[in-house]
């Protein structure tokens, strides 16, 4: 029980971090596999939990489909199977499954017994069935061994089933990403109808041994509703509002939280729009301006505006002041990739729509969906206070990153 390090977390600048990442990629170049850092980075952000809701055990879907189907059939939903697919092969797509049908089968075998889930924790599965790597494939072909592990993973029987024992790293590092998404509906006049913040803390922990981490917040009472990775000690959170946990190895989602709508959510952007169809002519006017508002001095990046235009719109001729735009006349989807917003010169998209001749003007206005990103800012004001590690002697490298994104951000027109 010695606090190996008790300093506050230094905020890691993105460029610094990128260089670290770069280094680790080059370091492991010979193994462009699921273990490699490049892969881990990619899957880290994309990772989300899969789940099965709705059926109690006794009820029968067709036996096999009962569970497996949930993950495989749900497109883009990040179901458990898909997520494992990404964990194993980097991407989960048809060709990848075809190429690795054996491994997929082996993993499914480990996951299911007679239609019931057996082991779904990725750490355990990876020990039972080793992810395919080029090196291992070569070795297997020559020596005749397989990917199948021959020992029961130690985690399975311990009280920390999510972590395997004997983890070793030369660089001990723990990164936490606080990512907040703003879900909002903005009405015609620009006032907020509903807005809430959904945040997650994704972690990438590569620490030797059995570290016991404690993460505390400056303002934990902001968090209105939380759900934890099973590793978090719930009692400790209830009594002290501190996250205390033995982390799984690698990437995982530590916490997801919700900041209630009662706290007024600062909306960092405004959208001014002027979309009008005239009854008489077959032309309509279209103008959107996106600008920053309450950004706490940070730049808004990666702004994308999409809008589903009414069926009557045949084509659009628009000129953006910045970025590029496309309009698909088949799906009637307008998308405008804005990029960074310059507060002095708010980007603007202006032009005309040509409507179906003779048809009456569409009586609905399109809704505008907005995507954006703000680095180094958690819009709810949540701040991590410190991260302490107990149980191990070394001093880990710690980093925390904040990001705000648009979730389901809609502007009604």
């Amino acid at each position, binding site marked *: 029980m010695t606090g190996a390090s008790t300093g506050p977390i230094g905020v890691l600048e993105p460029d610094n971090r990128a260089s670290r990442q770069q280094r680790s990629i080059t370091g492991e170049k010979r193994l462009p596999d699921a273990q490699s850092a490049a892969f881990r980075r990619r899957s880290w952000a994309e990772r989300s*939990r899969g789940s*099965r*809701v*709705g059926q*109690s055990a*006794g*009820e*029968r*879907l067709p036996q*096999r*489909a009962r569970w497996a189907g949930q993950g495989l059939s*749900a497109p883009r*939903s990040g179901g458990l199977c898909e997520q494992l697919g990404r964990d194993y092969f980097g991407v989960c797509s048809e060709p990848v*499954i*075809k190429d690795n049908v054996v491994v997929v*089968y*082996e993993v*499914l*075998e480990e996951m*299911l017994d*007679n239609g*019931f889930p057996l082991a*779904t924790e990725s750490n355990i599965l990876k020990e039972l069935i080793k992810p395919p790597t080029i090196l291992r494939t070569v070795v297997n072909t020559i*020596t*005749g*061994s*397989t990917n*199948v592990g*021959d*020992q*029961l993973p130690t985690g399975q*029987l*311990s*009280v920390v*089933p999510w972590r395997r024992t004997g983890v070793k790293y030369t660089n001990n590092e723990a990164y936490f990403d606080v990512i907040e998404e703003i879900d909002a509906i903005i009405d015609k006049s620009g*006032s907020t*109808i509903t807005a809430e913040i*959904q945040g997650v803390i994704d972690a990438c922990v590569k620490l030797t041994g059995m570290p016991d981490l404690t993460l505390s917040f400056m*303002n934990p009472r*902001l968090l209105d509703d939380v*759900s934890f990775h099973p590793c978090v*000690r*719930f*009692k400790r959170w*209830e*009594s002290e*509002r501190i996250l205390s946990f033995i982390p799984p190895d690698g990437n995982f*989602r530590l916490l*997801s939280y*919700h900041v209630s*709508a009662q*706290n007024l959510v*600062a909306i960092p952007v405004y959208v001014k729009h002027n979309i009008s169809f005239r009854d008489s002519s077959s032309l309509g006017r279209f103008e959107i301006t996106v600008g920053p508002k309450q950004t706490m001095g940070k730049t808004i990046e990666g702004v994308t505006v999409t809008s*589903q235009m009414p069926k009557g719109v045949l084509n659009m001729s628009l000129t953006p002041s910045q970025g590029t735009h496309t309009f698909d006349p088949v799906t009637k989807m307008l998308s405008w990739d804005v990029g960074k917003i310059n507060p002095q010169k708010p980007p603007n998209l202006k032009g005309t729509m040509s409507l179906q001749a003779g048809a*009456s003007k569409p*009586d*609905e206005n399109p809704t505008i*969906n907005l995507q954006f990103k703000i680095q180094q800012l958690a819009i709810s004001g949540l701040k991590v206070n410190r991260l302490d590690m107990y149980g191990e002697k070394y001093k880990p490298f710690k980093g925390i990153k904040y990001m705000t994104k648009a979730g389901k951000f*809609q502007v*009604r027109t």
Partner: protein
Amino acid sequence: MSQVALKGRRRPEGRAFPRDGRGQALLHRPRCLLADSPSAGLALVPLRPQRAALIEKSARSLRRRTLWSLLNPCRAAGLASPARTGPRSLPRLQPASGPAISSWAKSSPWPPHVCRPRLQRRQGRLRWPRGARVRPRPRERRHLLLRLQADPNQLIRASALRVLSSIRVPIIVPIMMLAIKEAASDMSPYVRKTAAHAIPKLYSLDSDQKDQLIEVIEKLLADKTTLVAGSVVMAFEEVCPERIDLIHKNYRKLCNLLIDVEEWGQVVIISMLTRYARTQFLSPTQNESLLEENAEKAFYGSEEDEAKGAGSEETAAAALPARKPYIMDPDHRLLLRNTKPLLQSRSAAVVMAVAQLYFHLAPKAEVGVIAKALVRLLRSHSEVQYVVLQNVATMSIKRRGMFEPYLKSFYIRSTDPTQIKILKLEVLTNLANETNIPTVLREFQTYIRSMDKDFVAATIQAIGRCATNIGRVRDTCLNGLVQLLSNRDELVVAESVVVIKKLLQMQPAQHGEIIKHLAKLTDNIQVPMARASILWLIGEYCEHVPRIAPDVLRKMAKSFTAEEDIVKLQVINLAAKLYLTNSKQTKLLTQYVLSLAKYDQNYDIRDRARFTRQLIVPSEQGGALSRHAKKLFLAPKPAPVLESSFKDRDHFQLGSLSHLLNAKATGYQELPDWPEEAPDPSVRNVEVPEWTKCSNREKRKEKEKPFYSDSEGESGPTESADSDPESESESDSKSSSESGSGESSSESDNEDQDEDEEKGRGSESEQSEEDGKRKTKKKVPEGKGEASSSDEDSDSSSSTSESEMTSESEEEQLEPASWRRKTPPSSKRAPATKEISLLDLEDFTPPSVQPVSPPAIVSTSLAADLEGLTLTDSTLVPSLLSPVSRVGRQELLHRVAGEGLVVDYTFSRQPFSGDPHMVSVHIHFSNSSDTPIKGLHVGTPKLPAGISIQEFPEIESLAPGESATAVMGINFCDSTQAANFQLCTQTRQFYVSIQPPVGELMAPVFMSENEFKKEQGKLMGMNEITEKLMLPDTCRSDHVVVQKVTATANLGRVPCGTSDEYRFAGRTLTSGSLVLLTLDARPAGAAQLTVNSEKMVIGTMLVKDVIQALTQ
């Protein structure tokens, strides 16, 4: 592996073994040389000792059906041949026997791996004979698998059982049974888990084995490792869900283990426990009116509330002696308390399971806690959303209040899939009430302009439902719907007509105009349902439109042949009604219509025409009926009730597939109704293992008092109850010695973890030792049985007395909290029955079957039970989660002074996000004038020194009747001076001031009792203010005191050792100096209030305020 795949493709699914006449499986291969005879001259290829892999492979190949399900999509997707992927993963068999195998592969439906002959173990290496084309007969394979079941590696033992249990051949059922039994008493929990998984497989193969399997399930249910719990309950649900009696003894253990079980297991266990609780406990909602008083506080649900809620229920019940008081069974409470943290699970399935458990089992006042978690799930993928929304829709009908605060979370986005939109609409409609209907309707208004026409139609239906449910808005809705009639989209118009028809039926007299308008629409609307609705309306209310109705009939008669059936029927109907009211004008038209209908193709229409004619046109016979035709046709009809399609879905267990489909699915277990009389609660008591008691009894007796009170607040025992060895070893020696049960559980935990052989041996001795203990323990009840007859046996009598003592102290422990003691009717009966069952031989199930029993069937489960019972660690929470200020809304600007602008403010007690030193103040604006107010902002404040304000963002415009809320932060600099500032609109400035009550100048701090005492010691003398007071009768219960204090001041509760003392701690916001408040309540209402704070002014004022709050 890929060969397996290849073979799998060739073999048609479901093809059974080829059989001979006797039902024996025939082998394709000619019997070959037995591999282990060296004379066969086969080269032995040395293999790496990867037996697990080997067995797993043969296991897999045997269960190709799973593979099939995997391969089928591949094939459909045009996967040429999985053999492409072959060489990489099929190395082992290739070198020597390649050609042989490939030729074999062509002819046999079995992949070569399966026919692997016996594995040989020589000099510690596994060998594999090269001429391995032989496929052993099932018997041999069986032997192989059975032999592997004795393998030292648990993974191999488990895999062998998995393989064996997956062979779907009836003749090996006895062997499977044997293997399962053996594995069920295996040392490794992993193998036991596999045994549990094998049970349903065997059951589906041969259901005659049920009785034996139930024995195994019973044994495994007593297992106390988290790994096994989920699987065995799953087996229980599959094999014998009706044997609820098996659960009794394990109930408390399951409740306590629940949080540590893996997620899949949690789901199964929770749904089983829901059913169990429905059969064993009384309905908590039977005294609903009493509970409603508690609704408010329990909404901010916290464990203390729950624990104490029962107490206050009881006092409430005492106030009404006429009713039979309801007291929640402590086991029922245990279940609710232990499942609650799981609402925070990351798995949507678990959250849903807990939600349904609360919905079905919790008292009305406590169900509210699940709303937040369910709303959180709405962020998930659309599949999850769909399921959750379905359940929310059902819940929101029964418990509307629960989701009302989250109304806005159900607002619809244009990107939602249609079925989600419709479900959200359903929920919004269910939630609409008098107060929120304006917002809901405004929201609906935007939906009507959506591009998704199905959704628009559903919205119109929803508006109709709102209009019927809430009388106040009926006219508004009706007008809105009439406006929609001029919509360009026919579907929208049609839907509106249908809804208008339903609405008009409620009050037709006033709406002649609307009916006329509708009549005009018949020319344009083509949707049959809408046309039919209009015709029906005109017919029904033809008195209101006497001039138009015949004209409509004329038009319809003209186009009769071209109409849809449903319209035709209504035309006949209209004609009949008009004939009866206005026969002069319409006689000919009616006859024309009827004769057209007589020759219609549809027999329904022909029938109707004939029938109508007989009714309305008096024939020569002078039918008795035709005299009453008017009464028949124009009878007053009751208005339709528009109600939700989710209305009666709650008879299905929520979260079940059946609920989702609204139809009973196969295998659905009906959720039983609450029993009238509670079954005997003592069946859940578990025998106390003597050895735990003996070692700790002395200690415990001494400590009994502080033990309970300690566990109420301190985290020591709490953590040990987590069964987390880390924290257990961390927690100080005090707590571990306090809870002897904790010790024992950690001990046996270790036993289970040591699965490696060496360690296993080490623990074996330990286990045998324990076995010995158990034997002595077993003797105890026997001794008791004899004791009544033969007292001379000193041994048995001593053990008897001992066991009596243990049972006594056990009883005391089973009375978890003080409120339980106050329950005379039930507790009087309970001890007697308890005593019997504790010592009853019948009830005690000795582990007679197994030679080596899994560690600690009885003892450890009890240990877990005791842990659960000492778990009253709740006092911290309520103060945290109920930040309601006593100071409610206060007026900042009156309507008159503000010229229509009304401004109120509340202290939200939430941290202000910009600056931690600031008090966050919610300011509510509403515009009661009839012109919009523009540009609301804070003008230049004139503030006393030190006080600063973080202004709210400017409110651009506030339309008449609208209201808005803004948050501003004020740093009061730890003084109660008022913050004066100007509130400016575009035209006016108002001077306003906010003066904080002293209690709002602080934020709660969480500290332990020791820290509190330490800090208090530093703040003596000048910094201590003490005052005496008398507590009125109304506020002597813990809960009331805590609530009053926390409502007055924003302080956090500090756990406290003695029951009559309350401690609270906080820090002032600006300077961060500590404010410690102690309330020492003495008997008979006298109390002493002490406040320790550096800020003496704050201290004095706080004392004053708190006393005022308490004595009021």
